[in-house]
């Protein structure tokens, strides 16, 4: 397997996930350069979440190949896992533990070299250092989601997946969330699944439209016009029977 600084952040080649005759993903192929921000659009049941789960090694594909930064997902899943961070609509935090304990747990599981320092730094970054000793249960949805960002970044992943991260957030919290994501962009690659067409389009550098498990369109944003894209998306959603 080729590996090195030049390999794309995400390379999917004929990815298929099927059970019986039902195909959740059908020959999905695309290539995403490092540092890009990919937005995935599609109607319900188009396979967006399945694609994220396959790319984050939670689900093994039935066929095809995928690699993250040159590391094959099926051949070296453990190595690939170390490159992945995930922020989903679920916080993946234990409500009864404090913010600090939650982050320390993940830091130690990932084998971060100085967990305490790393966790302190991250809590500072998401602006919750003063609440680090409070149980996550007591946090608002927006604060929980900020801790969740810190959790996803604890091992400094190179690819971050966002699965409907805005669900349940109020406008103010969304603003803070966006700022945080922007500040952590660096040369990380982001992949986001969202229903919010305008928002997803505004943030991305690449856009992917899925329908019934197939890629309808994949293009860098600078080749796209929002109105045309919205038109295309509406057509796709129209033909996708939910």
């Amino acid at each position, binding site marked *: 397997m080729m590996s090195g*600084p030049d390999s794309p952040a995400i390379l999917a080649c004929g990815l298929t996930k099927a059970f019986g005759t039902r195909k959740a993903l059908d020959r999905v192929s695309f290539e995403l350069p490092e540092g890009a921000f990919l937005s995935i659009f599609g109607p319900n049941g188009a396979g967006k979440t399945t694609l994220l789960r396959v790319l984050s090694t*939670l689900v093994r594909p039935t066929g095809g190949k995928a690699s993250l930064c040159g590391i094959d997902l099926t051949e070296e899943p453990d190595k690939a896992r170390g490159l992945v961070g995930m922020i989903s609509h679920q916080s993946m935090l*234990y409500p009864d533990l404090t913010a600090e304990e939650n982050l320390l*747990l993940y830091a*130690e599981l990932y084998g971060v070299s100085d967990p305490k320092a790393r966790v302190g730094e991250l809590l500072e970054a998401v602006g919750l250092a003063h609440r680090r000793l409070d149980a996550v249960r007591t946090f608002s949805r927006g604060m929980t989601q900020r801790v969740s960002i810190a959790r996803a970044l604890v091992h*400094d992943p*190179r690819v971050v997946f966002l699965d409907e991260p805005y669900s349940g957030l109020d406008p103010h919290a969304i603003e803070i969330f966006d700022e945080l994501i922007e500040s952590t962009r660096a040369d990380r690659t982001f992949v986001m699944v969202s229903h919010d067409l305008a928002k997803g389009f505004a943030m991305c550098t690449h856009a992917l439209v899925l329908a019934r498990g197939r890629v309808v369109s994949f293009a860098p944003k600078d080749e796209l016009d929002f109105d045309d894209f919205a038109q295309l998306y509406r057509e796709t959603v129209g033909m996708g029977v939910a």
Partner: protein
Amino acid sequence: MKTTKRGDSPNCHFAAKPSTFSQYKTLLAKDLRQEFRTREMLTSMGIYALLVIIVYGAALALTANGLDIMKMGGGLLWVLIVFTSLLGLGRSFAHEKDQGCMEGILLVPLDRSVIFLAKTTANVLFMLAVEVIAVPLFYFFFMTGQPVAPTLPAIVAPLAVGTIGMAGIGTMLSTITMNTRAKDVMLAVLFIPLIYPLLYACVTATTAAIAGTEFWTDYFVMPLVLACGYDVVMLLVCWVLYDFVVSA
């Protein structure tokens, strides 16, 4: 592990992949800390155990005098343990499922069987903690009227063996049932038949130790050995199959 381009940058936090054992310790510490904070499992299991004892009191109220409690004691004690641990096992994955934490842990590069071992250890510890309270209570309420056999302390062995096996099988099954409808009923339906041989052996050994008759070792050693064998086989099978179950 060879670091890539980013690895050389000063803000890199990758260290070598932590050892399986340290990941095991981290996961176990997480469960214990959480329990220590909420005391949810221990209080609910403890109160449940007490309630079962009270129900026994009502059930045996009219017969208690003529009843040979020394022969019944082992069985009653195990009924108490089975139902109490069923309650605890059912809850042991509630936190993992709630906020999607299980997914968070599956995203970490770690061997899936570590999750099984850590969870089983946590469940063993919780069940033992409850037994430490429930067994003396049981003794206090039902057995103080009778002379105690000198072999009574030997019940520790079947209790330990039974608890380990039940925690292992129960951890596996509650991982399955956390993704099903009607979780609690489902867990009981799978759990009780699968622990039956273990239960049978442990009840025999416990009863032998409580009664402490002349040839009590005949009824003690063999069942205990078989129970150990069952533990080993079932824990191995669960350990091997756990990867499939937890990633499904």
